[in-house]
């Protein structure tokens, strides 16, 4: 057992329950998304709250709060599993409820960086262990025995010597009066009964029966619908509004403009200022508002170069140059080629790469690029707001409620405690809902119209007012000696407007002479995190390149990587290598064995890839077939090391999904611009992978591990792109350097 200091106090909890009040009731009827308990168990007459994470009913039902936003990564099931594990509760008696935003109880209520499980690993278990300790103390007191002799199992308390037993429900009332322990013991991994077992999605029944769960499903008495009109192009701003026709249309309540951020407001990293002034149409129903918006006569004009000041995720302040002008994808490609031809900022240098390149027996040099991507969560951006002079009630899908609470408080000039943000289930996140401008917009609209309102984006709004994955470029060079040893490696990577470089990841540490350079080109197109930021491009580029280098060296691509990793493990170059060579090699070895690598099958073309990000390690082998001239993935073999796997069925689902998502984006997706306007604004032009293009089968293998859990939402996405590119090469005889690969006009033999 591991004894850890608790940070759970009753005081902070009591404060919360008083504050939550009616909001809690609302969350029950609207947001709870409870897993229905065993049908034979009735709801308890009374709940006893042992700490902010859980309460126990007099009949033994347990409500566990899920603190973090649920965006499809399944934390609403897996985080409560951590609490239930240490509480020793029978999972069938657990009800899960979405927690309110409350930073005095919960830590890091954020969905991002694949961090929810790893950051909640201790705190959630501690919450369960604390409550269990209180139940045991209550039983010890009642039975007049030592607490050390009271054991627990599946929601029951036992005293073996006397044969006494009681259910959690029976002891809940007494336990609630016990002082919160200052220190609790956590289980040894080998004693886990829930962690490591498959538990189905707690919202499953509600999802398959179409119950209201998502932000867009939310409604409140007297609620109006709002839509915004934003500039048609990045680089433009509002010039004039003629709303005379729109105003007179049926069901329309008002048309007005809003400025999202006041002059004196200090932008946060999660604020988006690409379209600072918007036109708003408010009316009774979605269809009426949609039609009235079409009747607006709006004029736009270009803005000029300016500078924004914003805080970063880590709290420092940055100045961002926003150039004026209307940008084009053709011009972006030219800019990227020009930057790549120049020297970048040297981020890391080991040995003497330039000298070694000059004397190399063979040099391989290749460039890779990828376009902007729109997130395209299936649920478009939306938010409910009910803002009065006294307070703001905000309900909807947001990955960063803690941060947005600060933004909206400052913008509305209300104290933080008057901002009530409630989290709904989210129809996808992928990073898009880190950037909550739509929440602020909804709040400002409600304030202006003095009514509860739901702001709804159409797909076109969503895709053309994006916070896109940047466009990226990477140039790679590798030097081989006469014995085909990799003696120098050079990467120069950049993007519009962010660089995808990770200078200290593999193969850094495995090559004596190494150079990593970075560059950026400014843009007025808003960008942000997209599932596995930067890794989502650089992994595919690097792993395609390594495949080509292995081929040039006449080596098996897996063995080539393993040899390099052997070097990184046993005699690493430099001290700042971000990855553990042993674990990266581990997933490669696992996928090699599980895929029967080396086995040739007629008409099956194979590619391999491995990557480290978000503290996890993933390797893919793709089996690709050409059917009627089209490439189709027959099977994805995937090996994952994310430490302890909390919920295997959901973890497997996430790895399958990440693999499909990665293949889809690399193969089909891309957002291009003409004069600042996105060329794709709906799924008729923006391609997402579909059923007929999805892999026919996916085999997921987890490395057995005792290491604390690491990320899983993002790590399976980046490497699969390299495996796809490498399998496509085997199938077509052609290397693929530009995403989306389909856009390259794949010719198949």
């Amino acid at each position, binding site marked *: 057992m591991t004894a850890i200091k608790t940070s759970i106090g009753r005081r902070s909890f009591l404060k919360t329950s008083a504050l939550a009040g009616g909001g809690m009731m609302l969350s029950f009827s609207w947001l709870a998304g409870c897993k229905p308990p065993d049908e034979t168990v009735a709801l308890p007459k009374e709940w006893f709250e042992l700490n902010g994470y859980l309460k126990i009913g007099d009949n033994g039902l347990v409500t566990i709060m899920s603190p973090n936003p649920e965006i499809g990564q399944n934390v609403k099931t897996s985080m409560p599993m951590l609490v239930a594990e240490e509480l020793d509760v029978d999972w069938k008696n657990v009800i899960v409820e979405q927690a309110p935003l409350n930073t005095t109880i919960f830590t890091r209520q954020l969905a991002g960086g694949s961090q929810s499980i790893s950051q909640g690993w201790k705190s959630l278990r501690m919450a369960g262990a604390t409550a269990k300790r209180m139940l045991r103390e209550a039983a010890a007191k009642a039975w007049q025995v030592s607490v050390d002799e009271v054991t627990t199992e599946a929601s029951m308390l036992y005293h073996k010597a006397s044969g006494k037993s009681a259910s959690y429900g029976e002891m809940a009332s007494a336990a609630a009066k016990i002082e919160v322990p200052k220190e609790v013991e956590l289980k040894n991994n080998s004693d886990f009964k829930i962690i490591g077992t498959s538990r189905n*999605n707690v919202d499953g029944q509600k999802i398959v029966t179409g119950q209201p769960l998502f932000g867009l499903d939310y409604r409140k008495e007297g609620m109006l619908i709002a839509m915004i009109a934003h500039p048609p192009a990045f680089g433009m701003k509002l010039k004039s509004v003629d709303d005379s026709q729109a105003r007179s249309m049926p069901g329309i309540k008002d048309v007005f403009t809003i400025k999202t951020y006041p002059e004196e407001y200090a932008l946060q990293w999660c604020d988006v200022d690409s379209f600072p002034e918007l036109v708003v149409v408010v009316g009774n129903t979605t269809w009426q508002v949609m039609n009235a918006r079409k009747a607006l006569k709006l004029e736009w004009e270009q803005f000029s170069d300016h500078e924004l000041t914003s805080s970063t995720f880590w709290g420092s302040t940055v100045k961002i140059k926003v150039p004026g002008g209307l940008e084009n994808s053709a011009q972006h490609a030219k800019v990227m080629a020009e930057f790549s031809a120049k020297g970048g900022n040297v981020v890391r240098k080991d040995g003497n790469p330039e000298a070694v390149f000059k004397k190399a027996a063979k040099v391989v040099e290749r460039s890779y690029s990828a376009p902007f991507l729109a997130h395209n969560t299936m649920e478009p951006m939306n938010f409910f707001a009910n803002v009065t002079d006294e307070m703001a009630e905000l309900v909807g899908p947001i990955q960063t409620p803690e941060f947005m609470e600060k933004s909206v408080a400052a913008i509305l000039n209300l104290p933080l405690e008057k901002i009530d943000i409630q989290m709904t289930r989210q129809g996808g996140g992928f990073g898009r809902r880190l950037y909550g401008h739509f929440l602020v917009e909804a709040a400002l609209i409600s304030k202006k119209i003095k009514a509860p309102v739901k702001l709804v984006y159409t797909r076109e709004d969503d895709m053309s007012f994006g916070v896109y994955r940047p466009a990226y470029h990477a140039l790679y060079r590798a030097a081989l000696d006469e014995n085909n040893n990799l003696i120098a490696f050079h990467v120069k990577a950049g993007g519009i407007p962010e660089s995808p470089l990770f200078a200290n990841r593999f193969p850094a540490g495995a090559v004596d002479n190494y150079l990593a350079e970075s560059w950026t080109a400014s843009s007025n197109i808003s960008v942000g995190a997209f599932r596995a930021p930067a890794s989502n491009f650089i992994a595919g580029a690097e792993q395609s390149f390594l495949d080509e280098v292995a081929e040039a060296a006449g080596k098996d691509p897996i063995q080539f990587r393993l040899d390099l990793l052997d070097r990184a493990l046993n005699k690493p170059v430099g001290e700042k290598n971000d990855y553990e060579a042993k674990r990266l090699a581990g997933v490669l070895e696992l996928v090699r064995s599980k895929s029967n690598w080396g086995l040739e099958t007629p008409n099956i073309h194979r590619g391999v890839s491995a990557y480290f990000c978000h503290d996890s390690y993933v390797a893919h082998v793709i089996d690709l077939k050409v059917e009627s001239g089209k490439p189709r993935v027959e099977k994805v073999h995937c090996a994952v090391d994310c430490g302890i796997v909390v919920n295997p069925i959901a973890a497997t689902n996430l790895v399958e999904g990440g693999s499909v998502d990665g293949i889809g984006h690399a193969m089909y997706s891309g957002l291009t611009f003409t004069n600042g306007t996105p060329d794709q604004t709906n799924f008729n032009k923006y391609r997402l992978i579909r059923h007929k293009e999805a892999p026919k089968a996916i085999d997921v293998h987890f490395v057995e591990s005792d290491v604390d859990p690491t990320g899983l939402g993002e790590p399976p996405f980046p490497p699969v792109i390299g495996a796809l590119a490498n399998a496509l090469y085997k199938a077509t005889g052609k290397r693929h350097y530009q995403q989306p690969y389909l856009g390259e006009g794949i010719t198949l033999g």
Partner: protein
Amino acid sequence: MATFNLNVNGKKQAVDVDPETPVLWVLRDHLDLVGTKFGCGMAQCGACTIHIDGTATRSCILPVSSVGDQKITTIEGLSEKGDHPVQKAWLEHDVPQCGYCQAGQIMSAAALLKENPTPTDEQIETAMNGNICRCGTYVRIKAAVKTASKNLNA
């Protein structure tokens, strides 16, 4: 504005709306049936799939005036207790990730199995190709359709 008498999930419902209003918004805004989802508004993603007289139909481009007395079935009315074989198979395979597209996927799958109780893999892919899932649950969806097919025919 005009009044339309609709048959939704076996229940008569009168709505007073613009005749051009898509059935999707009639369901969501007027009848408070929000299980049918808005995804694209142009019949490209399938999130809004309902059944019109048993046939899978995209409700986001279907004007309410075109429905007449045909039967509308939404995810809420697919089964009384949420135990349609497709719904059960979805739970068994733990298909959903974010869950937003799944009502549409289920409605497409249910219509397919009604028409063709033993579809091949290719037939499943073809019938489901209009339903996008950004989370990438396609492999599980196919497995769940096969399970539902097996249970339907058992």
